[in-house]
C-alpha cells in the first residue's frame, strides 16, 4: 500500500476513534469575541475554562467553540492589548455567546491571569508562527514616514529583506513567490508599490497579520515557504470614525462606521502619492514625467444573526509611471502595474460545534509597458508589452470541535487560473503596415484543486499535535499533476513553561515566478507548471524550544528545508529579451536552506518589541548554472539580527526604533578581464571572435557585498485627535550597498568599481487627524 495512503488512513482512524469517544454527555460553549467599542471581532483571543484547564482560541472570524462536561464554568477570556475578562457560565446546554472585550489602558500591565496559559508561546501547538502586533506596525519607524506591514515582517527572524528598502521578503531561503500572501483570503501576486519600496497594504485598514514559516497546517497550501495572512478591519459597528493622514509622499484617509448599527458596517481606506503633482509645476508643459500609486480598500459586512454573517472585501491598487514629450515626435511612455482582489465570504454556524466559511475569490495582477511615438517622416510606432495572472476561486472551510481534545478543520478549494506570461504587441504605421500581436506564449488556462483535513489533537495534558493532510491537483493543457502533502506538528510540554516542538511539512507549488533577479521591478512573470516545467516541491523539518520568562516569550528554532524543481532564468535571459517561449529560457534545479532562529519578544507593558537573530545558509544547485556547481542564493545571509522596540512614555508619547544588521548580499561580479582572441586560425571565425576585452566573472553569487546595517527611530505624539509622527530613517547615515557596477574606460585603460547606495539619512514627518 502506498505509504502516503497509510498515513492518511491512520489519521482518519484516530479521528473516528476520538469522535466516538466524543459522543459522551458534553455541551458546547461557542460564540464570538469582539471589541466592545467597535464590534470588531478578535482573532486569536483565548478562552480558558479554569475548572477543566482546557482552552481554545478564536479563529480568523473571532469564533470559538469548546466542548466540556456539564459544569458551572469559570471562563477567562484574554487578548493582547485588552483587559482580561472572567465569566461564570452554567454549561447545562449548548451555549452561544458574544463576548465583549475592553481595550487596555496605556499603563497596561502584563497579563495577570495566572490560570490562563493558552496565550503563552509554549502552550500553542503551532510553531514557526509569529503574530504581528498591529500597534507595532503603526508605531515602528519606516522610510518617508510611510508605515508598512512588510517592512515590519522583514524584522522577524527567518525573514530576510532583499535589496535596500524593498518590500519583497525571503523566508527560510525561499524566494518571494514562495510566500502565500493573503489579503482577506485572496492571494496577492505583487505586493510592491514604487518598485518595491512600499507594500500594497495600507496599515490603517489592517486588523491582523500572521506569519507562518514552517509546520504549515494543512489548511494552507500552494506555496513552499510561508503564509502571510492579513485580515482587514471589519468596520465599526457602533459609530462612525476615521483617520486622515498627510505624509511627505502620500496622504491617506480611512472611514468606518455602521450602515445599520450592530448589523452592517463598512470600512473604506484609500491613499495616493503626490510626487507627480508636486513635480508638475517644475516641468515644461509639453515635456513632463510623473509617477504615482494609489490603492483603495473597501469592506462591508452584515450580520444576519449570530449564526450567519457575510463579508465583502475589495482591494484595488495601481502604480503608474509616465513620460510625455508632446514635441515633434509626440513620444509617450507608460508603465503601470497593480492588483485587484475581492472576496465574498459567508460565515455560518451549523451547530455550536460546527462553524463554516464559504469564500469566493477573485484576484488579478497585471503589468504593462506602452510606448508610442510619431516620426517626422509620418511613421507611427506603437509597442505594448503585458503580462498578468487572474484567478477565480471558491473555497469552503469548516471548523469542527467535537471534544476539548480535538479541533478539526477540513475543507477544499478550487481555483481557475488564467496566465498571460507575456505578450508583445507592435503596430507600425509606415510603408510596411504592421499590426501584430507577437506572443511568445499564449494565454494558459489552469485549474487547481485542494482538499485538506487537520486536527489539533490534545493527546495528553503535555502532548498536543496538529496532524493533517492536504491533497492537491493542478491541470494545464496536456498535463495533470497531483500531490499528497502530510503535515505534522507536535508539542511536548516538559515543564510548566517550557515546550519542545517539532514539525514536518511537505508543500507543493504549481505556479512559478520568473525573476530577472537583480532588481525589484514588477517585470517578473508569473507562469504555471506545464508539461515541461514541473511543480516546485519542498519538505521542511523544524524543531524548537518555546519558553515564557515572565513577560518575555522566548523561542529557538532550527530548521532544514529542501526545495526541488525550482526555476531560474538562464544566464542572460530576461523579460522582453527572449526570442522564444519562456519555457526555453528557464533552468530547473534544487535548493536547500538550514539555520537557527532566535526570538525574544515582549508583547505587553510600556516597553515592548523583540530581538530576532537568524543564523542560516541557503544554497542552490542547477545543472546548467554555475557549471553545475552549488552556489549561494542571492539573499543567502549568514547572520541577520533585528531589534525592534516601542516605548510608551505616557498617554501622549511613543518612542520607537529598530536596528538591523545582516551579512551582505551575494552577487556575481567580474573578477577580472581577459582577451577573447582567436588569432587568425580561421578566417570564418575571425570576424566573430575578435580581440575583445571581456569580463571574467566569479562563480555565481561568489562575492559578498558589505554588511548591511541601519538604525531608524520614530517619535509619535498624540494630542487629542491629532497625531504627529517624526521619523528618521538611517539615523547614522550608513551607505549600505544597493548594487555594484564597473565603470569601464577602455580608452584610458581605467576601470573603477562603484558602489551605489540608495537612502542616506531620511527624516520625515506625518500628521494624522482622528475623527
Amino acid at each position, binding site marked *: 500500500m502506498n505509504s502516503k495512503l497509510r498515513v492518511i488512513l491512520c489519521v482518519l482512524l484516530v479521528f473516528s476513534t476520538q469522535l466516538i469517544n466524543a459522543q459522551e454527555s458534553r455541551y458546547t460553549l461557542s460564540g464570538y469575541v469582539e471589541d466592545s467599542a467597535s464590534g470588531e471581532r478578535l482573532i486569536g483571543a483565548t478562552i480558558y475554562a479554569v475548572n477543566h484547564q482546557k482552552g481554545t482560541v478564536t479563529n480568523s472570524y473571532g469564533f470559538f467553540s469548546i466542548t466540556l462536561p456539564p459544569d458551572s464554568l469559570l471562563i477567562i477570556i484574554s487578548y493582547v492589548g485588552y483587559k482580561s475578562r472572567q465569566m461564570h457560565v452554567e454549561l447545562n446546554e449548548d451555549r452561544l455567546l458574544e463576548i465583549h472585550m475592553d481595550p487596555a489602558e496605556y499603563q497596561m500591565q502584563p497579563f495577570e491571569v495566572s490560570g490562563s496559559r493558552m496565550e503563552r508561546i509554549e502552550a500553542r501547538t503551532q510553531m514557526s508562527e509569529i503574530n504581528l502586533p498591529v500597534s507595532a506596525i503603526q508605531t515602528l519607524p519606516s522610510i518617508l514616514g510611510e508605515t508598512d506591514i512588510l517592512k515590519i515582517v522583514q524584522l522577524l527572524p527567518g525573514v530576510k529583506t532583499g535589496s535596500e528598502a524593498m518590500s519583497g521578503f525571503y523566508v527560510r531561503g525561499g524566494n518571494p513567490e514562495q510566500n502565500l500572501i493573503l489579503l482577506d483570503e485572496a492571494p496577492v501576486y505583487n505586493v510592491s508599490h514604487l518598485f518595491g519600496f512600499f507594500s500594497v497594504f495600507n496599515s490603517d485598514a489592517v486588523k491582523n497579520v500572521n506569519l507562518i514559516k514552517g509546520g504549515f497546517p494543512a489548511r494552507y497550501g500552494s506555496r513552499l515557504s510561508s503564509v502571510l495572512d492579513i485580515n482587514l478591519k471589519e468596520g465599526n459597528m457602533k459609530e462612525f470614525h476615521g483617520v486622515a493622514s498627510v505624509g511627505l509622499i502620500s496622504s491617506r484617509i480611512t472611514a468606518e462606521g455602521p450602515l445599520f448599527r450592530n448589523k452592517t458596517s463598512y470600512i473604506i481606506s484609500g491613499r495616493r502619492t503626490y510626487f507627480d503633482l508636486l513635480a508638475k509645476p517644475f516641468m515644461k508643459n509639453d515635456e513632463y514625467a510623473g509617477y504615482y500609486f494609489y490603492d483603495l480598500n473597501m469592506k462591508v459586512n452584515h450580520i444576519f444573526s449570530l449564526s450567519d454573517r457575510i463579508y465583502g472585501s475589495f482591494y484595488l491598487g495601481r502604480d503608474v509611471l509616465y513620460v510625455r514629450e508632446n514635441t515633434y515626435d509626440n513620444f509617450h511612455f507608460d508603465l503601470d502595474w497593480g492588483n485587484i482582489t475581492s472576496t465574498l465570504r459567508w460565515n455560518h454556524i451549523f451547530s455550536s460545534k460546527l462553524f463554516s466559511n464559504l469564500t469566493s475569490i477573485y484576484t488579478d495582477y497585471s503589468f504593462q509597458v506602452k510606448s508610442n511615438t510619431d516620426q517626422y517622416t509620418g511613421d507611427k510606432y506603437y509597442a505594448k508589452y503585458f503580462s498578468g495572472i487572474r484567478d477565480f476561486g471558491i473555497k469552503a472551510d469548516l471548523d469542527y470541535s467535537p471534544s476539548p481534545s480535538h479541533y478539526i478543520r477540513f475543507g477544499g478549494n478550487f481555483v481557475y487560473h488564467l496566465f498571460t506570461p507575456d505578450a508583445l504587441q507592435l503596430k507600425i504605421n509606415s510603408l510596411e503596415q504592421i499590426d501584430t500581436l507577437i506572443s511568445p506564449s499564449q494565454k494558459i488556462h489552469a485549474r487547481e484543486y485542494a482538499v485538506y483535513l487537520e486536527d489539533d489533537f490534545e493527546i495528553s495534558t503535555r502532548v498536543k499535535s496538529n496532524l493533517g493532510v492536504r491533497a492537491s491537483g493542478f491541470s494545464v493543457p496536456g498535463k495533470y499533476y497531483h500531490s499528497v502533502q502530510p503535515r505534522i506538528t507536535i508539542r511536548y510540554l516538559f515543564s510548566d513553561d517550557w515546550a519542545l516542538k517539532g514539525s514536518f511539512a511537505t508543500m507543493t507549488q504549481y505556479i512559478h515566478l520568473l525573476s530577472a533577479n537583480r532588481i525589484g521591478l514588477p517585470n517578473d512573470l508569473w507562469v504555471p507548471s506545464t508539461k515541461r516545467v514541473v511543480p516546485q516541491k519542498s519538505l521542511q523539518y523544524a524543531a524548537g524550544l518555546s519558553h515564557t520568562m515572565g513577560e518575555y516569550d522566548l523561542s529557538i528554532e532550527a530548521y532544514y528545508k529542501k526545495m526541488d524543481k525550482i526555476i531560474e532564468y538562464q544566464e542572460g535571459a530576461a523579460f522582453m529579451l*527572449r*526570442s*522564444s517561449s519562456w519555457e526555453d529560457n528557464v533552468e530547473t534545479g534544487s535548493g536547500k536552506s538550514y539555520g537557527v532562529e532566535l526570538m525574544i519578544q515582549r508583547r505587553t507593558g510600556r516597553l515592548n518589541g523583540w530581538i530576532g537573530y537568524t543564523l542560516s545558509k541557503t544554497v542552490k544547485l542547477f545543472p546548467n548554472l554555475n557549471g553545475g556547481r552549488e552556489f549561494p542564493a542571492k539573499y543567502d545571509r549568514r547572520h541577520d539580527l533585528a531589534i525592534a522596540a516601542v516605548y510608551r512614555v505616557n498617554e501622549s508619547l511613543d518612542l520607537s526604533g529598530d536596528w538591523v544588521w545582516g551579512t551582505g548580499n551575494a552577487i556575481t561580479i567580474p573578477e577580472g578581464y581577459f582577451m577573447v582572441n582567436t588569432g587568425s586560425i580561421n578566417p570564418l571565425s575571425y570576424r566573430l571572435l575578435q580581440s575583445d576585452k571581456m569580463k571574467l566573472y566569479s562563480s555565481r553569487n561568489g562575492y559578498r557585498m558589505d554588511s548591511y546595517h541601519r538604525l531608524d527611530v520614530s517619535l509619535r505624539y498624540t494630542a487629542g485627535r491629532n497625531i504627529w509622527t517624526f521619523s528618521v530613517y538611517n539615523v547614522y547615515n550608513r551607505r549600505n550597498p544597493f548594487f555594484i557596477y564597473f565603470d569601464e574606460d577602455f580608452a584610458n585603460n581605467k576601470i573603477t568599481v562603484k558602489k551605489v547606495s540608495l537612502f542616506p539619512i531620511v527624516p520625515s514627518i506625518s500628521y494624522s487627524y482622528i475623527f
Partner: protein
Amino acid sequence: MKTSAGILQGMLAAMCMWLFASCETVTDIDLPAAGPLIVVSGFFTPDSAFSISLSSSTDYKNIDDIRAIENARIELLDDGTPAGTMTYLGNGVYRSENKKPKVGILYSISVSAQGFHTVNAEDKIPASVPVSLVSFDTNRTTEKINIYLMVHDPAGIKNYYELVIVGKNSHGISSIMNFDVNDPSFNAEEGKAAGFGADNIPFADFTDVIFDGKNYKFRISIDSYYKTEEVTVYLISLSQNLYEFRRTYQKQKDLGDSPFSEPVRIHSNVTNGAGIFAGFSVYKLKFTF
C-alpha cells in the same frame, strides 16, 4: 522586434534610474584583486596544425596588463597518449606542426607556465555534416534571393552548427555575405546568434534540436544586389564547448551591464583557467546563380 523590446526595456531602466537618482549616492570602492589566470584560445579542425594562443587575465586595476604568455609548456595528448609538446612561435602563439587533428579523437592539453596554475582542457572534433542546395529563386518585391538548403543531420547525436555564406564577386574577391533567416530551427534554442527576427546577419548558430536525424530543408535570403559570381555555403559543425563559448561570448557582449538579467559567464572548458580549446569541422557547398 528585438529592437522594440530593447527600446521598451531601455526606457524602463531609464525611468527607474531617473526615479531613484535623487536618492542614490555613488562611491568608489576597492575590491580584492584576483590572481591572473591562463587564458587559452585554441581551435582545431581536421588536417590543420594545432595552434594555441596563450594570454593572461588581469584584475580590474591593471586592465592594460593583459599579456601574451611566453615560455609556457604545452603538452598535447591524443586519446590520453602523449603526443609531444608544442613549439613557441612568439606573441603567445604555440603550434604543433607534426600532429594533425582528426575527427572523433579526444585531444587534451596541459599548460604550465611560471606564476600560473597549471591548466587542462580537452575536446573532440565533430564530424562535418553535409548540406545540399535544393533550389533558389528571386523575390521581386523584396529584391531578395531565396536560397533553399537541406542539412543531412545524423541521428542520435546532438549537433551544433554555424552557417556562413561567402560570395565571390566578378573580380574574384570573396567576402562574407549577410543574410536573413526566419526558420524555426534558428529559434529553437535560447542563445542562438540568429534570434527572433534575425535579418541581415553574417552568421547563424543553431542546433538540430528540432530536426535530429532528418534531412531538414530551410531557407535563407540574401540581397539580390550582391553581384555574386559564386556562392560558398559553409556549414561548420561545432563541438558543444565551442558552441557554448560562442553563445555566451555573444550574450555577454549583447547584454552589457543590463540590470534586467543575471551576468553571463563566458563558457570555458579550461580547468583552473579561462578561454576555450575546441574542435570544429567544415562542409563547403559551392554553387553559382
